[in-house]
């Protein structure tokens, strides 16, 4: 699903956020990328999410070599293959939940009625079938993150990238969101969760630890070695 080979991302001014990172993630995995702030995990998410291009090295998502795709084709890749969940939800204010989710599909070329149908189904899936017409300010933090997750999965992407999905939530809502992500993974979606929370990382099948732009530990690799 994801293949990084010797990926480096450095910024003008000499900052190297990713330093020759190589990582393979298979279809259907549920992976935590964990590390303190400044470890390069957010850059990793941007590179894996094709929002950012590496300075050197090869990034393959679902078989496509990112370096060989134009901006338009990369956008199409994101629209059809990758769903994003952000720490701060990024929901549009004053727009009902169902339209927030449906508008997320606007770049897939699906018609409006079908978008709304899929949005309703996605909200049902995250347990918000009774909140379709609620606007973000009428929802709790956990419910907002569920709406954001519904938006990310409404197009049935094979890959879901979550950036600190529980970072802005209390522990009960956070646990609910994590349960939801486990359920989605069980249904076949590859999920990568970026977090600095070791407890959350420990609850996932595979952990990739990062520090100073490099991978310092990978539970899958250790398992292989052992």
């Amino acid at each position: 699903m994801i293949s990084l080979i010797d990926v480096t991302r450095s910024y003008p001014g000499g900052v190297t956020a990713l330093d020759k990172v190589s990582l393979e993630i298979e279809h259907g995995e549920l992976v935590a990328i964990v590390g303190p702030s400044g470890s390069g995990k957010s850059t990793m998410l941007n590179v894996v999410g094709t929002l950012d291009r590496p300075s050197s090295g090869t990034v393959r998502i679902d078989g496509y070599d990112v370096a060989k795709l134009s901006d338009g084709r990369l956008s199409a890749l994101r629209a059809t293959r990758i769903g994003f969940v952000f720490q701060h939800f990024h929901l549009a204010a004053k727009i009902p939940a169902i339209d927030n989710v449906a508008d997320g599909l606007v770049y897939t070329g699906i018609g409006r009625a079908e978008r709304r149908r899929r949005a309703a189904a996605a909200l049902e899936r995250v347990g918000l079938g009774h909140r379709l017409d609620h606007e973000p300010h009428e929802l709790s933090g956990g419910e907002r993150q569920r709406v954001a997750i519904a938006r990310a999965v409404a197009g049935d992407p094979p890959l879901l990238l979550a950036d600190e999905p529980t970072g802005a939530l209390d522990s009960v809502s956070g646990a609910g969101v994590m349960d939801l992500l486990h359920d989605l993974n069980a249904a076949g979606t590859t999920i990568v969760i970026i977090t600095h929370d070791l407890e959350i990382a420990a609850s996932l099948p595979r952990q990739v630890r990062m520090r100073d732009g490099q991978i310092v530990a990978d539970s899958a690799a250790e398992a292989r070695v052992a």
Partner: protein
Amino acid sequence: MAAVAEHAGLPKLTPARMRAGDVLRVGAVGLRTRPLRAFLSALGIAIGIAAMIGVVGISSSSGAELDRTLSALGTNLLTVSSGQTLMGEPAKMPVEAEAMIERIGPVEAVSAAGRVGAAKVYRSEEVPKAQTNGINTYAARLDLPATVGATLRSGTWLNAATQRYPAAVLGSSAAQRLGVGAAGPDTQVVVGGKRFTVVGVLDPVPLADELDTAVLVGWPIAEAELDFDGYPTTLYTRAEEARLEAVRSVLAGTANPEAPNEVDVSRPSDALAAKQATSQAFTGLLLGVGAVALLVGGVGVANTMVISVLERRSEIGLRRSLGATRGQIRTQFLAESLLLSALGGAGGVLLGTGVTMGYALYQGWPAVIPAWATAGGLAATLAIGAVAGLYPAIRASRLSPTEALATP
């Protein structure tokens, strides 16, 4: 081509085209979420367009009113007035001038008025002599109103009986200056030291505005009581429209064969049209003011769009993560700018139309708004929207998605 070889066996990635309805809906997001700001920046455009439509509309309506007046009054009136002699003295037309003009073939009607220079007009004997109010006394033929197209606001015109008696008809301005509201048996003015009863008051006469400031009395009474010398000073001639120029060329010679140069011939409808042309030059100036207002409105829209792009960086980042291409982001903000100015333009057209209709109604004119003004106004707004939105839209599309998402 390397890309094709590299990804052989994988489905080709093609960004989906957005439908027109979705482009509009996405473009309207900014307007829906910030309605007051959208309203205010659209208002700038609306005022500019309304000003331009109003100026053009009012000027066209006034032109239409002139056309209506002229077609009601006829453009075939020629005025012959006595000018000056070579020595600079007031010239006199012969008494027979009227009869001689009548003999010109295409002439349909002739009437005359003679200025009674000595007879000043006052409201009463108590008014100081110097306060003449600029009112002139004319001896008038009975067919004068029919020939010049004058109508009475009140009372009646002179007739065969009253023209021999101290009866007067006031021009509209003269009545106003003398403080006479309506004609009546008890209403009298002092003409040349004698009391005259006001039997009628005229409406304004567009083709002979010298009558507006005149007090008109009968020819016989003027000769008998007011020392009138009997020479006509102005002849009003109606001739066949088709042969008007031919009549015009012989009028001076016919009216005063001995000294044709002492006669001025004019066509009053030309003067009205010329006045209209002058006011059109003024319209051009006002149109320029409207264009400046429109430009300021356009700057307002550009400003709103720049701020909108700055404020919505995280929305732009989100949309990029959802799969929007650079082009789609650019289209979104361009659509928003176009919608904003189109709303303003439509509002401005409505406002301008309303102002024109209201003013025309108030003036009793037919309301005319040329289609080119409306179409031009809307085209101008769309052009402004496109220009104002282009730079912010390009900036929005060039934002890197990670940078846009990093802003809270």
